[in-house]
């Protein structure tokens, strides 16, 4: 069997979501190739070629592929699909955007957000905000799968695969206009070892940053937020942790002024150690927290900063 992993490119390199997807791909019995997409991606393709266990890297470059628009990515991938029995991508917003499009073009039922590979055709995925795990077997000849990166370890470096160019499709009926990316020197939310998340309790954007940023900096952590905090404009959209935001599984997750709604828990309950700071002793977040402090964050967080030294 031959397996294609679509890389999550980040400038001249690939994100560790790619390495994690390769690990999932290697659990299928077959050769694993990586496809790197986008104009000017040679360096990223070279980086992907260093991932251990990879047979070869395909590089698709065209002006239309610059921003991973679904139409052009799908046209590129369907052109390569004949050579593959399974196509995998990390369940990033890009992967979620183009993979179902590819699946429909190939008349395949996509399998979203898998957390386990049981066999070549059987996979486990969370449903109902992670309150149930579904084991599904696919009868399609080709499998189209997105992979939840936090459920797989990153494949190691140390490979030396060859890089070959393949045709990249042109843009379709959608065109890129602009983007506003949040710049941060902190680790990426999905990959951070420590995440500190703030909720509605923070009350304003100023307070959110005044409380969360110094704590994150002290811990070398990424900052996350609940939906309530994002909706209220305290934090940018892509800070949202949860069922419909980002899924994180750091070694340490600290929830500050977050109640612990089902939808929020769906995004963080696989963290190794969970800490909750909440003034309501009955907040549901305490039911999943390893360590809880009942108190006002306004006094607890400064004390925590001090205790961290």
């Amino acid at each position, binding site marked *: 069997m031959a397996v294609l992993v679509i890389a999550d490119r980040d400038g001249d390199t690939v994100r560790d979501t790619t390495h994690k997807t390769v690990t999932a791909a290697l659990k299928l019995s077959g050769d694993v190739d990586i496809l790197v997409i986008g104009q000017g991606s040679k360096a990223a393709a070279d980086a992907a070629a260093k991932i251990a266990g990879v047979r070869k890297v395909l590089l698709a470059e065209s002006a239309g592929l610059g921003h991973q628009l679904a139409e052009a990515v799908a046209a590129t991938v369907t052109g390569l699909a004949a050579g593959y029995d399974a196509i995998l991508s990390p369940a990033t917003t890009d992967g979620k*955007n183009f993979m179902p*499009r590819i699946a429909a073009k190939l008349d395949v039922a996509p399998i979203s957000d898998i957390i386990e590979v049981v066999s070549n055709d059987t996979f486990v995925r969370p*449903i109902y905000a992670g309150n149930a795990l579904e084991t599904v077997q696919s009868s399609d000849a080709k499998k189209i799968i997105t992979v939840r990166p936090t459920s797989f370890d990153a494949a190691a470096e140390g490979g030396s695969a060859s890089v070959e160019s393949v045709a990249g499709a042109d843009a379709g009926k*959608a065109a890129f206009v602009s983007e506003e990316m949040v710049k941060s020197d902190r680790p990426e939310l999905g990959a951070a070892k420590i995440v500190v998340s703030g909720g509605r309790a923070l009350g304003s954007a100023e307070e959110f940053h005044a409380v969360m940023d110094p704590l994150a900096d002290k811990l070398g952590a990424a900052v996350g937020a609940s939906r309530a905090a994002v909706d209220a404009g305290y934090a940018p959209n892509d800070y949202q942790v949860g069922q419909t935001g980002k899924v994180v599984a750091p070694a340490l997750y600290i929830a500050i002024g977050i109640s612990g709604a089902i939808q929020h828990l769906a995004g963080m309950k696989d963290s190794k150690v969970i800490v909750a700071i909440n003034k309501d002793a009955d907040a549901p977040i305490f039911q999943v927290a390893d360590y809880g402090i009942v108190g006002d964050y306004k006094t607890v967080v400064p004390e925590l900063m001090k205790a*961290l030294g």
Partner: protein
Amino acid sequence: MTRRYVDRPGEAYHSLTQHSGAFVDINMKVLVPVKRVIDYNVKARVKADQTGVDLANVKMSMNPFDEIAVEEAVRMKEGKEHHAAGTATEIVVVSIGVTQAQETIRTALAMGADRGLLIQSDADLEPLAVAKLLKAVVDEEKPDLVLLGKQSIDGDNNAVGQMLAALLDWPQATFAGKIVIADGKATVTREVDGGLQTLSATLPAVVSVDLRLNTPRYASLPNIMKAKKKEIAVKAVADYGVDTAPRLTVKKVTAPPTRSAGIKVADAAELVSKLKTAGVL
């Protein structure tokens, strides 16, 4: 869909184009697929025999993202927010599901949609089958825009919109946090990893909506009464002649590993020492 030159197509559009007026697409027909799902406040419980989730006597509601899609379509019709009046003139809602999904359609009609279509199915269809049925509906209804939720909160697939766009060979704009209709295009700001991306999709297009697009209204009593008189056509899956055979077999549905509550610590100093012992600091 017809086009008309308007002086003030909306602030959002001004900031995109610099010029004062624009051709706005008016009289759009908008199709909004809505799904009946477990209410978002209910915690799903797995059945003891591992065949699925127990939905007996559980509160069901419209998928929250679909409410947002309905709300946006209604705003396009009303000319609310940045939408020019009459951006949409007809809103058709369609649901594929059990008979009770008519209640879900009725909710959308009470919010301001014009008419409904139920494609009755007792089977829980996969996104591919749903997309094929919706394509058949689009072929019949010929909407200018399909607005739907980014994700159903039961299956958490996040797939139908993208698949429908593929089958129609229409452009797609997923995870919309803002939609501006003008000049034959939907200019959509998408919520993506790392921030926001804006793209423009030539109409007709499929747009899937995210949480920040709007806050759905509660239907008023008079509108609930009015909705009772609106038409809901009922059809069967077989009427569409598309292949809806499942491709996936659910082998089992299990409960996730549970986390048990830990301990309460007295203060930050104790917390830090526990975290050091646990090896995470």
